[in-house]
């Protein structure tokens, strides 16, 4: 063993949302944890407030990725043309490459899934060509862990926000304040007879767990929070892990493969890390542990399983029945814009999301599943210019400039994460040609969602238009959606939970079938991705898996 080799109880790959949760639970239970993260541990000042380079609009880059050229992927379009893509491009399907993962700069919507989101196949049947399936666990199995996530990470919510999903304990924080656009939408929902309430957000609406409250700035989603009121694992469970003295976090550490022995037991990882913390030079190291947890996000975890071949596992780990990398999904997002007859006097304050309905998550005639609908974050001017001006308006000249000043404060819009009907052909494989900075084959993304997703999305788009009209919008518009690959920020599904090894990659707790000490705690586990933003479910699964590991060690 070289000097750089070392031994721990648990190695976790990825200090993103799910990895950070697992680190906290396990370090506090007495385990010595090595947490390897390929990104950096970025401070507030390291994440620029650049309106053209952030995680909602990344025209020329984003505000967390360092050395983007070193992390390409290959995207294959529906016509079969492939091209190399970089983190700021839409077809890369990025989350965020930093300690904290996507949640470092996320929108904080922290939803529990609907009980029927766990039994989609039983409720709707499985359409031909899709891989729609039930989860091997039920809502009740996750409920206590949703509760832990809400309390230990911090979620602000309206008591009626999860009427669709029974809860035992109230939210720890009061809901985000109402906004002027929300008031119009509340009246609209009342006219239509739809439920409407303040959505749950993982934000400190008052000081909580030693950190300050949100000051309602207007530069929220996609950026770092100036008061650290944006809750994720990076400012809760990860600091708890580090405080035990038992968790070692190494940043800029890129895991290249999981090492297994002939019996299938995982005994370590091989990774690349800087020779000294600030060096540009990297070296290959190995680390050993009796439990290995993968939490690289749905695309990178699948890639790592596929890269970790051995003579016993020539197709990669957990890939005994060819599920690794398949069923890649995210959320189709119908976006509907409109104009109120007058500008709201007080512009919305941040975060800006303030009203939602769960009226159409299930029970839509002739439609599989559905979506929650909500209003959106405070719009940056350049995002309003690009995506929310009426389509018939000239794109330049005085007419455009005047429209910007007359319409910016009249804009109103709705969107919703449509539960996708997964396809086994929407997938992550290894690209045969393109390699990353370390010489490793990169993720190749190909396929599309199942056409049924489109039907649900179009149904939801029409309901969003109904809501805007009922709210009093004068003009309402949106664009039809097309069949494409969907993953990006809400990426999930590539190592699905399954009771039977033939049906998926991991057991119902997230342990890889056939490898009794190899676990996953990220979005890869989701069998289906709910009609809600996925992160609270990722956290709940991570709490549950980590508690199980702690109990069995």
């Amino acid at each position, binding site marked *: 063993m070289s000097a750089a080799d070392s031994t721990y109880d648990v190695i976790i790959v990825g200090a993103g949302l799910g990895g950070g949760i697992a680190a906290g639970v396990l370090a506090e239970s007495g385990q010595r944890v090595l947490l390897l993260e390929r990104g950096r541990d970025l*401070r*507030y*000042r390291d994440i*620029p*407030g*650049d*309106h*053209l380079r952030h995680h909602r609009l990344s*025209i*020329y*880059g984003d505000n967390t990725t360092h050395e983007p050229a070193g992390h390409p992927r290959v995207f294959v379009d529906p016509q079969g043309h492939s091209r190399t893509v970089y983190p700021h491009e839409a077809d890369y399907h990025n989350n965020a490459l930093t300690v904290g993962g996507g949640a470092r700069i996320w929108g904080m919507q922290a939803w529990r899934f609907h009980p029927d989101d766990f039994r989609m196949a039983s409720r709707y049947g499985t359409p031909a060509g899709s891989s729609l399936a039930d989860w091997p666990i039920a809502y009740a199995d996750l409920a206590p862990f949703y509760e832990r996530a809400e309390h230990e990470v911090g979620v602000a919510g309206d008591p009626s926000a999860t009427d669709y999903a029974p809860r035992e304990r109230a939210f720890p924080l009061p809901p985000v304040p109402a906004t002027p656009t929300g008031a119009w939408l509340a009246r609209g929902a009342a006219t239509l007879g739809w439920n409407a309430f303040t959505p749950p957000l993982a934000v400190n609406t008052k000081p909580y767990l030693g950190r*300050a409250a949100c*000051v*309602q*700035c*207007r*530069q929220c989603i996609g950026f*770092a*929070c*100036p*008061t*650290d009121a944006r809750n994720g694992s990076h400012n809760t469970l990860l600091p708890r892990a580090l405080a035990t003295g038992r968790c070692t976090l190494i940043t800029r550490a890129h895991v290249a493969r999981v090492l297994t022995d002939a019996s299938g037991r995982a005994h370590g990882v091989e990774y690349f890390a800087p020779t000294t913390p600030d060096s540009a030079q990297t070296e290959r190291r190995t680390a050993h542990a009796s439990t290995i947890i993968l939490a690289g996000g749905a695309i990178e975890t699948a890639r790592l399983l596929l890269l970790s071949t051995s003579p016993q596992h020539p197709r990669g780990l957990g890939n005994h029945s060819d599920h690794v990398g398949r069923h890649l999904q995210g959320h189709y997002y119908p976006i509907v814009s409109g104009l109120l007859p007058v*500008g709201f006097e007080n*512009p919305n*304050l*941040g975060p800006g999301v303030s009203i939602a309905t769960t009226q159409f998550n299930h029970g839509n005639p002739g439609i599989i599943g559905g979506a929650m609908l909500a209003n959106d974050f405070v719009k*940056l*001017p*350049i995002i*309003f*210019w*690009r995506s929310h001006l009426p389509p018939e308006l000239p*794109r*330049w*000249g*005085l007419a*455009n*400039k*005047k429209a*910007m*000043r007359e319409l*910016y*404060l009249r804009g109103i819009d709705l969107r919703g994460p449509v539960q996708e009907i997964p396809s086994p052909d929407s997938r992550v494989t290894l690209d045969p040609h393109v390699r990353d900075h370390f010489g490793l084959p990169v993720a190749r993304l190909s396929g599309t969602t199942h056409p049924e997703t489109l039907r649900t999305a179009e149904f939801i788009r029409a309901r969003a238009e109904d809501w805007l009209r009922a709210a009093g919008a004068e003009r309402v518009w949106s664009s039809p959606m097309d069949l494409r690959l969907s993953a990006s920020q809400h990426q999930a599904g590539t190592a699905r939970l399954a009771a039977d090894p033939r049906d998926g990659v991991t057991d119902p707790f997230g342990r890889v079938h056939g490898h009794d000490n190899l676990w996953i705690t990220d979005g890869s586990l989701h069998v289906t991705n709910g009609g809600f933003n996925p992160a609270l479910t990722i956290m709940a699964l991570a709490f549950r898996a980590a508690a199980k590991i702690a109990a069995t060690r």
Partner: protein
Amino acid sequence: MPLTPTQLEALRALLDRLIPNDEFPGALAAGTDKFILQLLTHACAAEAPFLAQGLTQLDTEAIARHGQTFATLPITAQDALIFALEHNRTATPWPAAFPAAAFINRLIDLAAEGFYADPANGGNRDGASWRMIGYDPLLPARPSAP
């Protein structure tokens, strides 16, 4: 410098029509030309030769139609020409790889990106466009986040 003086003159004249001055500053007053030059030397360096070629072609087009460069045309003629290019109605042959509409649309995007993005990007001096529309990021003077 990614552009010749003539190309720069065409760029500035074009920006002045894409986001003109009125009772509020327009693109030139807000420094959007400098934002674009900065991009062409850095993030969009690979694209710079195409845009430079497009600016030359813009003058060729103006001369073919009116006998003078784009920058010296009256504004009504400038606006009519921009509109024609947007619809790929051209009097001279544009490169197939970079047709007139693609060129003009790219410049429309670049102008808006500079003008409506954060002042630190250089094209929205003193937050001129933000004041015009009523946006303020309301960031605390002293961030308390680590």
